[in-house]
């Protein structure tokens, strides 16, 4: 039995809105082992951010958790292992003991997660003084070390500056420094590079990777960008309309995808060798979860939909020990349907690339 740090079971969440109830999360399971990286991939509205907000106890007030548990195992300061079900704890307790402390989060836009009226230094030491209970002088020393660690040149000077004086990439580095300042067990990155320029994106991802290795932190990425996933993830969860539709390790998802939705996602992003006239795409747009879904939520957009998809939600079919997909195509009674030709060729081509 390996060391699971996060174990989300059967999470089911409804939002009450003026338009009616939105069944945003419909039975989600996510595992994360210590030190590993999991990516949750999905379109906007698929519920990927909601899952992580639930884990941090920062869910919006109009949400009702219908069922599920989020088991989080973290190291106490003395090194002993603690286990809590975050959903059973009070929000206040989670905010004081888990958020920013054991689970840290990096958001998409660094400008909105930094306080424009506070210096970089003060924002860094604030959490440390509160959570670690160290003196201001010690916090300052560590803050400067942290700034150096995340690759900020001239940390003494930056310490006294305000967020608007830094570039986008620099700000995201500061956010990372704040995130790791209290020795978290788990780091959640919500689209950490979308707001950054391409040339900086890779550097930020590399930085997160290095820090993860050095501190033994587990990381969850929430993203719609498969380039990011390919670069960083060990395991991938593909999410659609509030459910995980395919899960597997990164090689399985990229080189042997089973779910038609994953096929669509993969082929929608041209790699540099794509020269087909058209990209294979998923038609239509994601369903509105105001209406209860009958059968498979993906069926109306699925070019390979079976009759069964309209009747009943497919269970998770096992492909390998680590690879599961929720599509009736994997049922033994289903017709043999292969992934689209273009994608097949592309995967062949990708496999040729030396690793």
């Amino acid at each position, binding site marked *: 039995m390996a060391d699971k740090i996060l174990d989300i079971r059967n999470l089911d969440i409804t*939002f009450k*809105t*003026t*338009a*009616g109830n*939105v069944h*945003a999360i419909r039975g989600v399971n996510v595992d994360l082992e210590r030190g590993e990286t999991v990516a949750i991939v999905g379109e906007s*509205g698929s*519920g990927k*951010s*909601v899952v992580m907000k639930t884990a941090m106890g920062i869910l*919006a*007030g*109009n949400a009702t958790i219908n069922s599920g548990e989020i088991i989080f195992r973290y190291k106490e300061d003395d090194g002993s292992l603690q286990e809590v079900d975050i959903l059973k704890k009070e929000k206040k307790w989670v905010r004081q003991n888990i958020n920013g402390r054991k689970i840290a989060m990096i958001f998409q836009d660094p400008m909105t997660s930094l306080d424009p009226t506070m210096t970089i230094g003060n924002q860094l030491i604030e959490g440390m003084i509160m959570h670690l209970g160290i003196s201001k002088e010690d916090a300052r020393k560590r803050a400067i070390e942290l700034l150096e660690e995340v690759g900020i040149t001239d940390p003494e000077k930056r310490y006294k500056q305000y967020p608007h004086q830094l570039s986008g990439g620099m700000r995201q580095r500061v956010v990372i420094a704040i995130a790791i300042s209290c020795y978290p067990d788990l780091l959640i990155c919500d689209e950490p590079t979308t707001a950054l320029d391409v040339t900086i994106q890779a550097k930020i991802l590399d930085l997160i990777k290095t820090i993860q290795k050095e501190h033994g932190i587990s990381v969850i990425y929430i993203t719609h960008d498969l380039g990011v996933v390919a670069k960083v993830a060990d395991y991938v969860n593909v999410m659609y309309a509030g459910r995980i539709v395919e899960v597997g390790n990164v090689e399985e998802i990229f080189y042997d995808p089973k779910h038609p939705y994953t096929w669509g996602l993969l082929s929608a992003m041209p790699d540099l060798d794509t020269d087909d006239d058209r990209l294979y795409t998923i*038609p*239509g*747009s*994601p*369903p*509105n979860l*105001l209406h209860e879904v009958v059968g498979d939520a993906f*069926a*109306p*957009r*699925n*070019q*390979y*939909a*079976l*009759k*069964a*998809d*309209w*009747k*009943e939600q497919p*269970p998770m079919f096992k492909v390998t020990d680590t690879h599961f997909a929720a599509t*009736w195509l994997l*049922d033994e*009674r*289903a*017709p043999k*349907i292969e992934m689209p030709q273009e994608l097949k060729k592309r995967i062949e081509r990708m496999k040729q690339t030396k690793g």
Partner: protein
Amino acid sequence: MPEISTVTNEDFVLDVSKDLTTDKNFASQGFWKGVLTRFRKNKRAMTGLVIILVIFVLAVFGPMLSNYGYKEIISIGSGQDVVAKSLSPRIPALHNLFSSSAYQDAFADRVFLFGTDSLGRDLWTRVWYGARISLLIAFVTILIDMLIGMSYGLISGYFGQALDGVMQRFVEISNSIPRLVIVGVLATFMPKGVWLVIVALLLTEWIGMSKIARAEMLKIKGQEYIMASKTLGAKNFRIIFSDVLPNTIGPVITQVMFSIPTAIFTEAFLSFVGVGIVLPQCSIGSLIEDGFNNITTLPYQILPPIIVLALLMLAFNFVGDGLREALAPRIEDM
């Protein structure tokens, strides 16, 4: 899930949605429907709305419910009559409980819900008649304010630069002149009365609205949908009044709701200091003034108009608050 599957062997054939390429999705809820639902849920705002409606209905029908005109001096007999001066509120069935003097007993069979004033006029009639005038003044000024204030603010904000500079300096100058001075100047060449009040309000009230409209314009004119209209060749007039104006509706309605009580209060104030309504007409303000003169001896005279004024101001503020929240809800991001 241990449910028994209903899927049978026959279900494993391709059954692809026929209309795969046309996207029929859309969220069903309309904007105003959402506003309505949110507003209804707000208890305070609903209370405010009910109060406004009740006062409104009473202002329209209240005077008709009594048998007296607003300037009718009530008396018994002919010639040298007994005038119903300063009667306390009375309902015939109950009056024996409070009845005090023989003089009051002369009117034992009459209904005076709010009593009468010192000249012998029915206060019930006068209060609702006064409320009518006050509401009328408020709505007329707000309507004209909206026209002037909004056009002024939208134009100033849209063209910006030098024009905006000149227009805003003008606003600052007009804003710095005390309202009483304006009223005083007006009163020297205008007869006192409803129109004086309306003109006085017009000269000052539009400034708030123009500021709101200008701020909205500054916010909206950089939006991409305005650029889109420009790239399609839309003229300035079209952009200001067809593209931007409908988008300012939320803050504008809210501002209107907050300026109505200001207008009512200003009218009351002007009437109270004696430059407003001329007798025998009355408004909430002039009634309060009358009542104030006798406050130590006949306190019941001042209560009805003051309560109506307070309720109106409170109710409009409630509704304004409710509308503001309903029109711009906190975004519950998903």
